[in-house]
C-alpha cells in the first residue's frame, strides 16, 4: 500500500485511544460527498489497521469494501448537487474489521441489488455495476438498515 504525503486534517475526528502507546481500535470520520475524500479515508483506515498486524488480504478487502461503498454513495446516492456528509466508522474487533457507512442519500440497499451479468462478452459489457458486486465478494457479512432517512451499511471482513 503506497504512502501519501501527510495532509493537514480539517474537521476530522481522529482515532480514539485509551492510553498512549496502545493500538487504536476505532476510527470515526465525517467526510464530504466528494471522491477526493477517498484517499484520505483510505490512508486513515490503513494506518489504523497497520497497528493491529492484519494479514495483507484483510487490509486489501477492507480498502476495497470501503472504496466501493463510498464511491457508490458519492457517485449515485444523491439527487441534488449540494454537498452531503457521510459518516464512516472503522472498528477493529480481531480477527475481524467492521466498517460502517452512513449517508443521507436516496434509499439504497446494496444487499438487495441485483448481481451483474459476469458472463457478458467484451462488446456487451457496459460501464458500472461492478462496485457493489466486488464489495459483496470481499466481505464476510453485510447488514443494511434505513434509519430516519439515512442508509446505514455495515460490513465485516
Amino acid at each position, binding site marked *: 500500500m503506497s504512502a501519501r504525503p501527510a495532509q493537514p486534517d480539517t474537521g476530522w475526528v481522529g482515532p480514539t485511544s485509551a492510553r498512549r502507546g496502545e493500538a487504536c481500535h476505532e476510527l470515526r470520520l465525517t467526510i464530504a460527498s466528494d471522491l477526493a475524500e477517498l*484517499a484520505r479515508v483510505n490512508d486513515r483506515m490503513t494506518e489504523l489497521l497497520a497497528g493491529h498486524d492484519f494479514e495483507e488480504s484483510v487490509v*486489501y478487502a477492507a480498502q476495497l469494501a470501503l472504496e466501493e461503498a463510498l464511491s457508490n454513495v458519492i457517485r449515485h446516492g444523491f439527487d441534488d448537487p449540494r454537498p452531503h456528509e457521510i459518516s464512516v466508522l472503522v472498528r477493529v474487533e480481531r480477527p475481524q474489521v467492521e466498517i460502517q457507512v452512513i449517508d443521507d442519500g436516496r434509499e439504497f440497499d446494496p444487499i438487495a441489488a441485483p448481481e451483474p451479468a459476469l458472463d457478458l462478452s*467484451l462488446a456487451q459489457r457496459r460501464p458500472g455495476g461492478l462496485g457493489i458486486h466486488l464489495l459483496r465478494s470481499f466481505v464476510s457479512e453485510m447488514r443494511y438498515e434505513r434509519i430516519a432517512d439515512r442508509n446505514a451499511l455495515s460490513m465485516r471482513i
Partner: protein
Amino acid sequence: MRLKILRDDESLTYIALHGRLDVEGVNEIQYEFLQKTTWVPKRAMVDLDGVSYIASLGISMLVSAAKELERHGFKMVLLQPKPLVQKTLEASGLHHVIPIATAEMAAIELLR
C-alpha cells in the same frame, strides 16, 4: 499511479502499470492509458506486476481499452497480476474476456 511504456511499435503496445488502481490512481493515468492503447489500435500487453490494488473503476478502465481494441480486431492481455489483484479480476469475471498470463512469453502467445 505510474504508467511506463515498455514497447510501442507497429505491432504491439506493451505498458507497465505501477501503484494503486483506485479512484485517485485511475484519474491520474486513465487518459494516457487509453491514449497509448487505443488511439493507434494494435495488440496490447499490460503488465500488472507493479499494481498492488485494483477497484471497480480500474477494472472499467481496462475493459474500456480492451473493448475498443476488440472493435478494431486486436486483443489485450494482462500480465502477472499479484494474487489479490488477480482475485479481484476474477471476481469481476474479467478473466473471461481479457486473458491473463503469468509470463511474458505466454502473453505474447495469447496475443497471436
